[in-house]
C-alpha cells in the first residue's frame, strides 16, 4: 500500500522538523485547539435560547477571555516552566545516577550541574546508552513540567482572569442595554438623548503662584 507523494512529503517534513523536539508543534496545536474550541462554544452560547441577554453578555466575553488568557498564561507559565525543566536536565542538575557515572567515566563529572553544560552536545552522547537514558528522563521532566504548568495556567490562573475580564465587559454591556431600554421606554430617540458634554472650565490654579510671585534674581 502506498500513499500519494504529497502525504509522504508531509510525513517526511513532520519527521524532519518535529521529531527531535515536539515542543513547537505542541504549542501551536494547543493554541489552535483553544481557538477552535472557543469559537465553537461562542456559537453555542449565541444560539442557545435558554440564556438571557445578560447571561450571554457575560458568557461570550468569558469564552473569548478563556481562549486569550489560556494562550497568554501558556506563554507566561507553562513555557518558562518547561524551559526550566529542560535546562535542569540538559545541564545535569537533575539526572539519574546512571547517567552521572557514565559521564564521570569520560572525566566530565566536574561539569555536571554547571550552567553551560549541555549533555546532548557531548561527543560521546550516542555511546553506551547515554542517549537512551537521557531521552527517557528528559521526556519525563519535560512532560511533567508541561502538565503542571498546563494545570496551573489553564485551570487556576485562566479562570480567575477570564472571569475578571468577562465581568468588566458584562458591566459595560449592561450599561448600554439599560441606556437603550430607558430611551425606548421614554420614546426618545437614542441619538437625541445624549446631551453634549459641557466643557470643563480650565483650572489655572496651579499656575496662580507664578502670577503673584516676585522673581528676584
Amino acid at each position, binding site marked *: *500500500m502506498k500513499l500519494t507523494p504529497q*502525504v*509522504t512529503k508531509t*510525513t*517526511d517534513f*513532520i*519527521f*524532519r522538523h*518535529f*521529531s*527531535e523536539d*515536539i515542543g513547537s508543534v*505542541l504549542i501551536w*496545536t494547543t493554541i489552535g*485547539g483553544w481557538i*477552535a*474550541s472557543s469559537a*465553537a*462554544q461562542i*456559537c*453555542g452560547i449565541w444560539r*442557545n435560547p*435558554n*440564556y438571557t441577554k*445578560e*447571561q450571554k453578555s*457575560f*458568557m461570550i466575553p*468569558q469564552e473569548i477571555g478563556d481562549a486569550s488568557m489560556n494562550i497568554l498564561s501558556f506563554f507566561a507559565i507553562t513555557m518558562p516552566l518547561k524551559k526550566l525543566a529542560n*535546562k*535542569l536536565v540538559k*545541564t545535569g*542538575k*537533575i*539526572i*539519574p*545516577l*546512571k*547517567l552521572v557515572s557514565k559521564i564521570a567515566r569520560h572525566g566530565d563529572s566536574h561539569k555536571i550541574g554547571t*550552567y553551560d553544560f549541555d549533555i546532548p552536545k557531548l561527543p560521546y552522547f*550516542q555511546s553506551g546508552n547515554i*542517549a*537512551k537514558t537521557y531521552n*527517557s*528522563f528528559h*521526556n*519525563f*521532566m519535560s*512532560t*511533567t513540567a508541561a*502538565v503542571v504548568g498546563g*494545570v496551573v495556567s489553564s*485551570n*487556576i490562573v485562566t*479562570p*480567575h482572569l477570564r*472571569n*475578571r475580564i468577562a*465581568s468588566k465587559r*458584562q458591566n459595560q454591556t449592561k450599561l448600554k442595554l439599560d441606556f437603550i431600554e430607558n430611551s425606548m421606554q421614554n420614546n426618545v430617540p437614542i441619538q437625541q438623548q445624549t446631551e453634549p458634554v459641557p466643557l470643563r472650565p480650565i483650572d489655572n490654579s496651579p499656575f496662580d503662584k507664578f502670577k503673584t510671585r516676585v522673581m528676584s534674581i
Partner: protein
Amino acid sequence: MSISRKLFDLIPNISIKNKNRLKILNKAGDIMGRPMPNRLIMGATAIVSQPYIDEHNRRVDKDTARTARNRTIGKIVAGTAVGCVVRELIFKLINSCTNEDISVDRWNNVLTPRNTTTVRPSMLPNRLRNYRTALSTIVAMVVMVGTNIAFDLPLTNKISNALNARDAKKRNKNAATPKEVYTDVKNKILDTFNISRGEKT
C-alpha cells in the same frame, strides 16, 4: 554573572539513585506524554478547580455565576470525553500505521516517514515516538475542529441546560417553602441537623 545564572547555581544537584523509581518516572513520562492521558489529566484537574472558581465569582450575580459554572462543567465533561476518544483513536491509528520497517510498502508503514534512514539507529525509537505524538496531535487538532461543532457543542449545551434546569427546580422549591424565622437558637440547630424537636402534639 547574570541573575539567571546565579539563581541556577542555587539549585542543588540532584541525582536519582533508585532504579525502580527511575523506571516508574520514565513510565509516567511516557504515559503523560500520550495525547489521551494528557487530556484526561487536564480534564480531571479542570473539573475540580474551574467550577469552584466560577461559582465563587463575586463580580457577577449568583444566577450568572451558577449558569457560568454549569456551562463550565458541561464544557469540561464534553470536551474531555470527546477529546479523549478522538485523541486515543487517532493515536492508535497512527501507531498502527507507523511501523519502523519500511523495506516493503504495507498498510502498517503507510504513515512512516521515508527519511528515517538518515537518523542513527540508536536515536530512531525516540525520534519515531516524538513523530507519532506530533502527527497524532496535528491530526487530532484538525479533526477536533469538526468534532467541536458536531459533538462538543450539543453535548455541552445538553449538560449545562440539564444543570440549569436542576438549579431552577431547586430555586423554585426554596421559594415555595418560606423560611422559618428562628427566635430560639436551639430550634435552629435542631432543624439544621434534621433532629426532631421532640414537641408533643
